[in-house]
């Protein structure tokens, strides 16, 4: 397929708006994909890229804007309609049926028939042929789940191709692939492009974008902020556009007294490995110290946090608390050692939605609140009131169900859940995400205050500004490995970004393994 370059784009989305319950997720977003092009779509969490894709593929209906595909205005009302219209989507979690065979997963919904009955011989042959075109040679009559994730991805791609898709969307297809599997996938993407199919490639691994994409669209806060040829944009610029910090420096808060660098770490982890996510992470937190953990999505930040808290068991590596090796089987073990954890996804892993603020706040403390096995309600109430006041949680009463609270107040309750236990270490995964500015400031200064009182904090954030303003030390992860460690005046958005982008520390090489 030869397309002259000035031809209209295959896909043209303009002025796309979409709100959820009044909260805008997309504000005048636009997105173009040319024919026979591999287009990168990047942005932080909440930037709107997945909403944009879902609008395109008919999962959501846009509030406004126009979508033109293959020269015609379209508005798909279901993923199936989008598929029939020539847009195939391959989701991050392979969205196929694991127990069914490879052939079935390719042909479900459009089975080939003969005399009204399914023609397995023909379907198997076509499946084999489709996959051979992708350089995959497997027994297509085996259940899909017997094969590697890479093969599963290839099956999803084969399914997409069997629809004669003109546009294939790949949403973080590489997140669970090993390196050689990624290179196979890239060959496939290049071949697709050469045969005239366009590909939208969503990934947080910058190297991959440069390896396979022609152009990039960068989104932030529901808007499209840039649209450039991959060759014309540096990694550093890419990251800064994505994060929304221009190259000018945010002033670091008045330099603080250097923290007890000589103090023994409260917690110390070395050589953590976990599947494809962690490939050797070292991190230590001392008492009174806020350690920032930076890295793009998929760099292993959250996985590190979960391992430290005993929520996941590492494949290898060691965790020491007070220099004593520990092996947490369940979070309860970590809690007993004075560790608290605020998970990334408040709704799914943090709050107990139907329970009251009082109960959510004291859930971990309950064993210590009992007298003869009975919860001491008066003490419970005192503690709850004290923390509601101290942290400034806005509730009508302590009996209000937590699901009725705003995100910021929910987060405060979750922080209070640990603070009331007098912890020695808090692991906070994106504690200020989705929270309004005021509450954010309050939470940040609370954390600072607690650290000054001797609490150790591991602070994970996608916002570099937040890390620069709050952390005493920043550990940067990239692809599941430490790539830099910055301390004191070395901490700057520029340096963190550079480490996130290039994987090399500008200075302070001691963090790299």
């Amino acid at each position, binding site marked *: 397929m030869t397309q002259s370059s000035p031809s209209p784009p295959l896909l043209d989305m303009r002025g796309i708006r979409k709100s959820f319950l009044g909260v805008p997720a997309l504000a005048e977003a636009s997105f173009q994909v040319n024919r026979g092009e591999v287009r990168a779509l990047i942005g932080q969490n909440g930037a709107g890229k997945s909403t944009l894709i879902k609008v395109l593929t008919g999962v959501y209906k846009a509030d406004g804007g126009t979508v033109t595909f293959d020269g015609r205005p379209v508005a798909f009302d279901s993923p199936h309609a989008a598929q029939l219209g020539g847009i195939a989507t391959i989701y991050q979690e392979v969205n196929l049926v*694991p127990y069914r065979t490879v052939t079935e997963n390719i042909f479900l919904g459009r089975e080939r028939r003969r005399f009204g009955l399914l023609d*397995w011989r023909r379907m198997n042959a076509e499946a084999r042929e489709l996959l051979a075109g992708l350089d995959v040679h497997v027994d297509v009559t085996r259940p899909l789940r017997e094969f590697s994730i890479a093969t599963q991805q290839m099956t999803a791609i084969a399914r997409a191709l069997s629809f004669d898709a003109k546009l294939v969307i790949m949403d973080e297809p590489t997140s669970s692939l090993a390196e050689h599997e990624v290179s196979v996938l890239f060959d496939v993407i290049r071949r697709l492009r050469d045969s005239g199919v366009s590909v939208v490639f969503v990934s947080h691994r910058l190297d991959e974008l440069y390896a396979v994409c022609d152009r990039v669209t960068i989104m932030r806060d529901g808007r499209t902020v840039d649209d450039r040829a991959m060759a014309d944009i540096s990694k550093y610029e890419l990251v800064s556009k994505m994060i929304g910090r221009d190259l000018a420096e945010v002033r670091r808060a008045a330099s603080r007294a250097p923290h007890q660098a000589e103090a023994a770490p409260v917690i110390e982890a070395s050589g953590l490995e976990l599947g494809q996510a962690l490939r050797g992470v070292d991190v230590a937190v001392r008492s009174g110290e806020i350690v920032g953990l930076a890295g793009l999505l998929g760099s292993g930040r959250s996985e590190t946090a979960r391992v430290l808290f005993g929520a996941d068991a590492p494949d290898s590596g060691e965790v020491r608390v007070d220099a004593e090796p520990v092996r947490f089987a369940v979070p309860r073990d970590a809690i007993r050692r004075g560790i608290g954890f605020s998970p990334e996804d408040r709704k799914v892993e943090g709050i107990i939605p139907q329970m009251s603020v009082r109960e959510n706040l004291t859930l971990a403390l309950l064993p210590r609140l009992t007298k003869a096995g009975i919860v001491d309600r008066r003490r419970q109430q005192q503690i709850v009131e004290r923390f509601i006041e101290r942290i400034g949680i806005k509730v009508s009463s302590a009996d209000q169900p937590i699901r009725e609270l705003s995100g910021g107040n929910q987060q405060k309750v979750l922080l209070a859940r640990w603070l009331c236990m007098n912890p020695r270490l808090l692991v906070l995964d994106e504690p200020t995400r989705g929270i309004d500015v005021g509450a954010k400031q309050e939470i940040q200064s609370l954390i600072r205050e607690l650290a000054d009182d001797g609490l150790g904090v591991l602070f994970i954030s996608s916002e570099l500004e937040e890390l620069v303003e709050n952390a005493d030390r920043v550990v940067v992860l990239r692809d599941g490995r430490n790539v830099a460690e910055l301390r004191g005046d070395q901490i700057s958005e520029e340096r963190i970004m550079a480490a996130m982008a290039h994987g090399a520390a500008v200075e302070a090489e001691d963090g790299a393994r």
Partner: protein
Amino acid sequence: MNQLLAFRTRASNVLALQRHGALIALIALLVFGIVRYGDRFAGENLANLLADDAKFALVALGMTFVIMSGGIDLSVGSVALLGGVVAAQASGAGLVPAFGLAVLVGLALGSLNGVLIAKVRLEPFIVTLAALLGVRGLALYLSDKKAVVASGTGSFQDFGRWELLGLPVSAVFMFAAFLIGAAVLRYTAFGRTVLAVGGSEDAARLMGLPVARTKFVVYAMSGALAGLAGAFLAAQTGSVSTDTGIGWELSAIAAVVVGGTLLTGGVGSVMSTLVGVVLLQLIFNLIVFENSMGAIEISSFWESVIRGGFLLLVVLLQVKLSRRRASGGTAPA
């Protein structure tokens, strides 16, 4: 990576192994029975056993499809009772009207379940539980709480005595129904959709498969088959007692699971359900024979204990399978 792959392959063989295991156990028990009890066991006894099994098997067939779709149908026993009652009551009108009415009644009740589950989207467990209670009430009301005796003459009563190829007609019917069921599963888009819906409803929806319609059909089918099972019972025994069908749903589930169908849906085999049904019944049959030998006395109550033991074994096997799967890194929904 290769280790992981090997792991997964081995794990997925567990279900196949279980299926073959059930078949091997069945064959072993048959051989044991023939060797130990001789012709007395082999000929007419086995034919009767199959004829007896037919009604359970039909219920289990419907249940297989329901479970493969990721659901459950607790109402089958009650629907079978109702089917038996209406068939017996209509038996004077002849074979076809009686069977037709039973199937229609079952189909209607199954469709009601199907609508509530597929369209109104209530939980299958509770909907079919309520149907279990309500339909039994309806059946008892229609039968006036007495055993319903089928009309003594005519084609309906004769039906139970028909033979085909030396087998009781109900056994022939059972084999035919399972062959058709297996073909539907393997050679129709509907069959594949049932498995896809059970395997991952979200994925099925994203693939544009008719999820609601498929769910509706499996419940309707299960109801119709349960009604048919009731009619068979009425034709074979000439009367339908009021305690018919109690616990059938759970026996059917046990047979389906022992046969190697995954309870979480998405994987299954029709023929192995038949193996499961016959296997579980054969255990009972063997106990009877052993007792008739007089050497040892095995209480018939062992039957349910052994059934439960089988179920436990199968469940633990499946746990092992899913553990392996989890450690293998893939996590199908």
